[in-house]
C-alpha cells in the first residue's frame, strides 16, 4: 500500500466540512431557544476538553489509526470487539447523514422522485471518492471549503436586514438547564463526532501536528455553526424556529432584496450537499479501515463498494419517516453516542498510558 500524505491545511478543511455536515440545515440545539449561542459556546468548551483526549491518543501512537491503537490497547479479542463497535458507529453515522441528505432533498426539491434515485447518486459519488483515497477527499475539501465559506458569508450578510436583536432576549429566561441540555446535544452532534477521524487519518509524525489540526478545525467549524445558529435565531425568532425542520433554509428563503435578489435558498442546499458528501465519505472510510484491520487485509479499497452499498440500503430503511429521524437525532442520539465519543476514548487513553509506561520500565 502506498503511503498517503496529507497536509495540515487539508486535514483541517476536511474536519471543518465534517462539522458543518448535516448540522447546517437541521440546525442544532433549538431547545435552548434564545440562548442557543450560549449553548454552542458551552458545547465548544466541552469539545475542546474532549479533543485533548483524541489528540493525546494520536501523540501516543503516531502513524497509527484508531483500530490499530485499539488492538494494541485491549489485546486481540476485546480489541476486535471494540473495533466492531466503532465500525458500527461510523457505519451507522454515515447512514444517518445519507438519510438526512435525501430526506432534505425530498422535502425541499424533489418530492416525487423515488428515494433510491437520490441515494444512488449521493452514495455512488461517496464510494468513488473513498476508493480514490483520503488524499483525494482532503484535496477536494480544501478546495470546496473556500466556496462554502464564500456562500455562507454572502448569504448571512444578506440577511442582516431581517434580523431583530430582541429575538435574543431575555438571556437565561428558563434557567441554565435547557441550555446545558442543548449544549450536550450540540456537543455530540456535530462536535464530538470528529472521533471518527481517529480512524480516518494516519498522520505522519514528521509532517502533521494533530494538536493543531484538531483544535484549529474545531475552532473554525464551531465558529461557522455559531454564526449560522445566531443568524437563524436573529431572523426567525425562537417560537417560529422551533417548528421548523430546516431553519437555515427558511432563513435564507426570507431574504428578499428588491425584486431581483430573492429565492437564493438553493445556496444552502449546495453547501449542505458538499459538506454532507465529505461527512458520509469520512464515515465510510472509517468503517472500511476498521474492517480492513479486523481481517488483516492488504487494502481497504476492496471493501468500499460493498460497505457503501450496505450503507445505502441501511440508510433507506433506517427510519420510516422524518419525524422518527428527528426524534432519534435530537432525543436519543446524544446518549447513544456518548460512549463512543467520550467513554471509550478515555479508557483507551488511560490504558495506553499505563501500558506505555510499563514498556518504558521494562526496557
Amino acid at each position, binding site marked *: 500500500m502506498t503511503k498517503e500524505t496529507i497536509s495540515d491545511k487539508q486535514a483541517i478543511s476536511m474536519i471543518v466540512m465534517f462539522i458543518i455536515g448535516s448540522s447546517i440545515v437541521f440546525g442544532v440545539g433549538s431547545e435552548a431557544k434564545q440562548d442557543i449561542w450560549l449553548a454552542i459556546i458551552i458545547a465548544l468548551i466541552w469539545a475542546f476538553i474532549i479533543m485533548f483526549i483524541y489528540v493525546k491518543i494520536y501523540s501516543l501512537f503516531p502513524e497509527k489509526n484508531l483500530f490499530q491503537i485499539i488492538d494494541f490497547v485491549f489485546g486481540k479479542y476485546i480489541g476486535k470487539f471494540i473495533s466492531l463497535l466503532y465500525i458500527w458507529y461510523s457505519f451507522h453515522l454515515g447512514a444517518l447523514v445519507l438519510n438526512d441528505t435525501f430526506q432534505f432533498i425530498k422535502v*425541499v426539491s424533489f418530492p416525487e422522485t423515488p428515494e433510491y434515485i437520490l441515494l444512488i447518486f449521493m452514495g455512488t459519488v461517496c464510494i468513488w471518492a473513498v476508493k480514490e483515497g483520503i488524499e483525494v477527499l482532503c484535496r477536494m475539501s480544501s478546495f470546496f471549503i473556500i466556496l462554502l465559506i464564500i456562500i455562507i458569508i454572502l448569504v448571512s450578510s444578506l440577511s442582516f436586514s431581517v434580523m431583530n436583536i*430582541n429575538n435574543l432576549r431575555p438571556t437565561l*429566561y428558563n434557567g441554565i438547564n435547557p441550555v446545558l441540555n442543548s449544549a450536550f446535544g450540540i456537543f455530540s452532534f456535530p462536535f464530538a463526532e470528529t472521533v471518527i477521524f481517529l480512524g480516518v487519518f494516519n498522520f505522519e509524525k514528521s509532517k502533521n501536528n494533530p494538536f493543531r489540526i484538531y483544535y484549529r478545525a474545531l475552532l473554525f467549524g464551531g465558529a461557522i455553526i455559531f454564526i449560522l445558529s445566531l443568524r437563524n435565531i436573529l431572523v426567525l*425568532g425562537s417560537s*417560529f424556529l422551533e*417548528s421548523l425542520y430546516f431553519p437555515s433554509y*427558511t432563513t435564507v*428563503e*426570507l431574504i428578499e432584496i428588491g425584486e431581483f435578489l430573492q429565492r437564493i435558498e438553493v445556496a444552502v442546499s449546495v453547501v449542505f450537499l458538499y459538506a454532507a458528501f465529505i461527512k458520509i465519505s469520512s464515515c465510510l472510510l472509517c468503517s472500511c479501515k476498521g474492517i480492513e484491520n479486523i481481517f488483516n487485509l492488504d487494502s481497504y479499497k476492496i471493501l468500499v463498494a460493498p460497505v457503501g452499498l450496505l450503507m445505502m440500503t441501511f440508510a433507506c430503511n433506517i427510519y420510516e419517516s422524518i419525524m422518527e429521524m428527528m426524534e432519534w437525532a435530537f432525543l436519543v442520539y446524544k446518549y447513544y453516542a456518548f460512549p463512543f465519543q467520550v467513554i471509550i476514548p478515555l479508557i483507551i487513553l488511560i490504558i495506553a498510558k499505563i501500558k506505555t509506561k510499563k514498556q518504558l520500565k521494562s526496557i
Partner: protein
Amino acid sequence: MKFKKALLISLIFNCFFLSGCWNYREIEQFSIVSGFSIDKSENIYNLTFEVIESAGGRDKKTSTKLISSEGLTIFDAIRNIIKYPGKKLYFSHAKVVIISSEAAKEGIIPLLDFINRDIEPRYNTKILISKNIEAEKILENGGNTEIFCYSLDDMLDAQKNLSNAPKVEVWEFIDDLGKIGISPTLPTITLEKKNNKVIPKIEGSAVFKGDKLVGYLNGSETKSLLFIKNKIKGGLLTKKIDIENNYANISLEIFNNKTKIKPKIENNKLLIEISTDTDVSIGEISGNIDFSKEEERKKIKSYFEEDLENQIKDLIKKAQTEYESDIFGFGKVIKIKMPSLWKEIEPKWKELFKTIDVSVKSNINIKNTAFTSNPIKAGD
C-alpha cells in the same frame, strides 16, 4: 483505453439530454397562482385562485383568470381544482392570501397550516383580512390591473408612505401568534364605491386574540399601533390648528421614528412608559401661520405632540377595554426587560393587561420645512 474514452464522451454527451428532474414538467402544465382567497361556509372551505396565464410569442402577454373550488381542508380544495381546469396549481409565486373575516373569527390556525407546512408557498406571502365581505368578492372586483394580487402586494409595500395598514408576512404572523405576550394584527381590505366603480381599499387592521379575530382598528388607529410597535417608516400627521385665531390645517411628513417601551415599577405598580421620538418636516400648511418664529414652531410642535399622545392613549384604552388583546406586545417587552417579574405575572397577564397603567410621551422634531420657508401670502 479507447473504450474508456468512448464511455466518457458518451456520458458527457448524455448530460445535455438526460438532465433535469425525475418528472420534469413544462410551464404549460401548471397554473401559476399569484394569490388566493379563503372563505369558509359551515365546514367547507371555498378557495378562489387568481391564476396567471401567459401567452408566449412575440407580443408577450399576461392575463389572469379566477378559479374557485371547495374542499374539507385547504389542501383538499387546492387539489380539487384539478376537476375544473385540469391543471395542478403552483404556489411558489403566490404573493397574497386574502382570508375572510368570518373564517378568521373561527380561528386562523387551520387556514395557515398549509402555507406553513407545504414547501411551495413561501413564508413571505402576505396576509390580508377581508373586512365584512367574502374574500372571493375582493378578487372578483380586481379591476383592470394586469395581475391583481401583485398589485395588492405593491399596495401593501406602498403603505409605508401612509402607515394606515400593517404589512404582515406569514412567518411574522406565525411567530407573533406563537409568542406569549403579544397578539398579532393583520391588514384589512374592503370594497368601496368610487367613481361608479367598486374598487378594493386597504386600510386599517384586524385585531386577534389568540388565533381568533376579535375586532378592527381604523386607519388612524392603525397608525398609532404602528407608532407603538416602532414600525412607522413614513406617513403624515395632519391636524387643524389654531394659534391666536389663526386657523390652519397642517401636514407633517414623518421621516424617522423611534419608539421605546419601558416597563417600570412605580409605587408598587407596574407602569409602561412609551416614548416616541419622531423626525418630521412641515409638508403643507393651508393657512397663514408664520412659523419662521421659534415660538410658533414650538406651538405647532406641542399641538402635534399632544395629539399623538392622545391618539396612542385612546388606542391603548380601546385595546384594553374593548378587545382585551395585547396587540402592542407589552408582555413581550416585560419579558425581555424584566424576566423575573414576567415569570410571576405571566399566568395572570391577560387580566393584568386590562388594567395596566401606561404613560405616553411624544417628542416631535421639526427638522425642516421642505422647499419654502413661509406660507403663501395674499398681499391684497
